[in-house]
């Protein structure tokens, strides 16, 4: 019976992997432990998740200057940080594009944009593009909500910020806020993954 169960699990894994396409990538699923990193911030300092000793978790957002969807969400990303940084869930923004392909996303441009918009969150350069593939980010913006636990920073939500990229006033589903609120209240995140339109990360 034990062998049969094992066989069933093995077969299941095979069946699932047979239907897995390239587009799924090898990134994190909800429940995985996310890697920490040490990436340069716009102020020249290196930033790691571990630097935030008092954090209960993190709102990691892959975003950039040049994608219209990312730009449309800038103010809402800032609002997320204002609302949740003090509660223990700071926004950590990471710019994943190859800046040779997108010069508008280089460090000087990131600094200028952050200054112009008054970003209060770290805006980090994924130099060498090593971090975004581990997370499995494919586009900007792309959100990962992490919860700090004893076994590491566990992925609790992946997807969109909300359900209207065009008009913040017309939003009816605040997916990222709902996920963080649930975690702050010690509950289960109801909607664990959502899909968002975005600009492909430039390699």
């Amino acid at each position, binding site marked *: 019976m034990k062998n*049969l169960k094992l066989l069933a699990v093995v077969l*299941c894994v095979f069946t699932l992997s047979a239907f897995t396409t390239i*587009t799924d990538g090898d990134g994190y699923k*909800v429940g995985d432990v996310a890697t920490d990193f040490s990436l340069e911030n716009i102020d020249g300092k290196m930033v790691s998740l571990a630097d935030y000793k008092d954090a209960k978790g993190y709102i990691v957002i892959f975003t950039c200057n040049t994608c*219209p969807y990312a730009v449309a969400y800038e103010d809402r990303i800032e609002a997320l940080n204002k609302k949740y940084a003090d509660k223990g869930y700071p926004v950590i923004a990471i710019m994943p594009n190859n800046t040779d392909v997108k010069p508008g996303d280089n460090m000087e441009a990131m600094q200028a944009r952050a200054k112009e918009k008054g970003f209060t969150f770290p805006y980090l350069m994924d130099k060498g593009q090593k971090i975004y593939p581990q997370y499995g980010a*494919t586009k900007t913006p792309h959100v990962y909500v992490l919860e700090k636990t004893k076994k590491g920073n566990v992925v609790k939500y992946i997807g969109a910020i909300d359900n209207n990229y065009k008009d913040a006033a017309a939003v009816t589903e605040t997916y990222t806020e709902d996920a963080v609120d649930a975690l702050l209240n010690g509950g289960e995140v109801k909607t664990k*993954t959502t899909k968002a339109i975005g600009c492909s990360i430039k390699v």
Partner: protein
Amino acid sequence: MKYMPLLVLMIFMSCKNESTTTEVADSETEGKEVKEEKVIPNRKFKIYDYDGLEPLINKVDDKVHVVNFWATWCAPCVKELPYFENINAKYKEDGVEVLLVSLDFPKDYDSKLIPFIEKHQLQSKVVAFDDTDQNRWVPAINKDWSGALPATIIYKGDKRHFYEKSFTKEELETELKQFLK
């Protein structure tokens, strides 16, 4: 072999455990027949929400349909656009139809999209897609789509391939030829 039904059941059950954290269901899209089509006079294209677009990307006929999601601000999209124009012209007589679905923002229709269509003399059919409920239509268009642009569907009848990638001219023709047999 008498364990076969049990085995099959267990496969399903163990699979079910694996899939509890998958995407939000797109059941909302089922059973809706509402077509909203915003037609503005003198525009060179029609503007659709998802209910309007859905029939255009699920045509049941003998043709090979190539649907490309793009925007004028999307550099890799603009780069591959001539390849779509190429197959639209080259394979028209083989029953190939290209549909270019622009995701430009409505505020850019007059200032960017129309000038772009005119400047590049686009011959393929262009429609504009304006629907903000991304979590509904991204998985409805394809369950494996992460939402990154550009993206392309090639389909004929029940045969359907989805591509979340940029094409070279040769790659696109190779993919298309799979449908021309």
